[in-house]
C-alpha cells in the first residue's frame, strides 16, 4: 500500500496495479503469489525437505537419453518412412502379406522393435516435459502423467507382443 503510493504520481491511477509490472529495474514491491500455481515450477521451495526416493539424477539421464535416442531415431524413423511411403510403390503395396514377408527377416523385426521402444520412450519423455511446462495445478499434472504412463505402457506392451508373437499363418 505505502509502496505503491510512494511511486510516481505520473503513472498512478493510469491503470490497475499488477504486482508483476514492478519486477523491473525500477524496484517496487516484490510480486506476490496469488495461487499455488503462480510459483514457477522450476523454482524449488528453498526450505522444503529434500525429496527422497526416485532415481538420483533422473533428469540428467532423461536429458541424455533424448539426445542419444534422437541420433538413432533419425535413421530408424526416416528410414521407416522412406521404405514405407516412398520405396517401390509406397504405401500402396502394404498389406498383410507384405508385413508377413517383411517380418520373416530378423533385421526388420529388430528395426521395428527398436523403433517402437525408442520412439515411444523419446516421445513419452517429450510429452512429460510438455505436461510439466503447461500444467499449473499439481492434480492436473498428476492425472495427465498417469494417463501418459498408461498409454506408454499399453503401446509398448501391445507393440512388443504383436512383433514377437507374429504368426503369418493366422486365421
Amino acid at each position, binding site marked *: 500500500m505505502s509502496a505503491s503510493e*510512494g*511511486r*510516481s*504520481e*505520473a*503513472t498512478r491511477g*493510469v491503470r490497475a496495479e499488477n504486482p508483476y*509490472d*514492478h519486477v*523491473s529495474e*525500477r524496484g517496487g514491491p516484490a510480486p506476490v503469489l496469488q495461487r499455488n500455481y503462480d510459483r514457477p515450477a522450476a523454482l524449488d521451495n528453498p526450505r522444503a525437505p529434500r525429496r527422497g526416493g526416485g532415481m538420483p539424477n533422473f533428469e540428467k539421464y532423461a536429458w541424455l537419453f533424448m*539426445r542419444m535416442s*534422437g*541420433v538413432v*531415431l*533419425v535413421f530408424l*524413423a*526416416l528410414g521407416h*518412412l522412406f521404405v514405407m*511411403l*516412398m520405396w517401390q*510403390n*509406397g*504405401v*500402396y503395396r*502394404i*498389406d*498383410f*502379406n507384405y*508385413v*508377413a514377408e517383411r517380418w520373416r527377416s530378423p533385421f526388420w523385426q529388430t528395426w521395428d522393435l527398436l523403433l*517402437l521402444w525408442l*520412439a*515411444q520412450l523419446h*516421445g*513419452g519423455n*517429450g*510429452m512429460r516435459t*510438455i505436461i510439466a511446462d503447461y500444467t499449473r495445478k499439481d492434480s492436473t499434472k498428476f492425472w495427465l502423467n498417469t494417463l501418459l504412463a498408461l*498409454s506408454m505402457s499399453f*503401446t509398448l506392451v*501391445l*507393440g512388443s*507382443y*504383436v512383433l514377437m*508373437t*507374429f*504368426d503369418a499363418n*493366422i*486365421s
Partner: protein
Amino acid sequence: MTQANVASDVPAPRSRRRRTLYRGDPGMWSWVLHRITGATIFFFLFVHVLDTALVRVSPQAYNEVIDTYKTPIVGLMEVGLVAAVLYHALNGIRIILIDFWARGPKYQRLMLWIVLGVWIAVFIAALGVIGMHMAEQFL
C-alpha cells in the same frame, strides 16, 4: 529534484515491449515447431501401433484398416507426417550440436537456416516421390 520528477522521466515498464535475447527470436520459433511436430508424431505413433496390432487379429482386419492409409486425404496427412518427422529430426541434430559441440551455440542461428534449407530440399524430393505414387493411384 523530487522523486516524482525522476520517475516521470523513466518510461513505464509496460509501455514498450520487453526485449529479451530469446523472445521472438528465430530460436524461439524453432523450439515451438520442435514441440508441435514432436507432439504430433507422438499421437500418430499411438494410432499407428494400434492399427499395426491388427496383424495379430486377422489379415482381413489389417488389410481393411491399412486401406484407409491409401486414400487421398490420408495420403496428404502422410506428406504432413514426413514434413513433421523431417523437421524434428533435422532440428534435433541442431539441438544436439548446440549442446555438445563447443561452437554449437555460436552457430545455432546459421544451423537453423541450414536445417530449413535441407528440410526444403529433402521435403520437395519426398513430395515428388509420394506425389508420383498418389498420381499413379488416383489420377
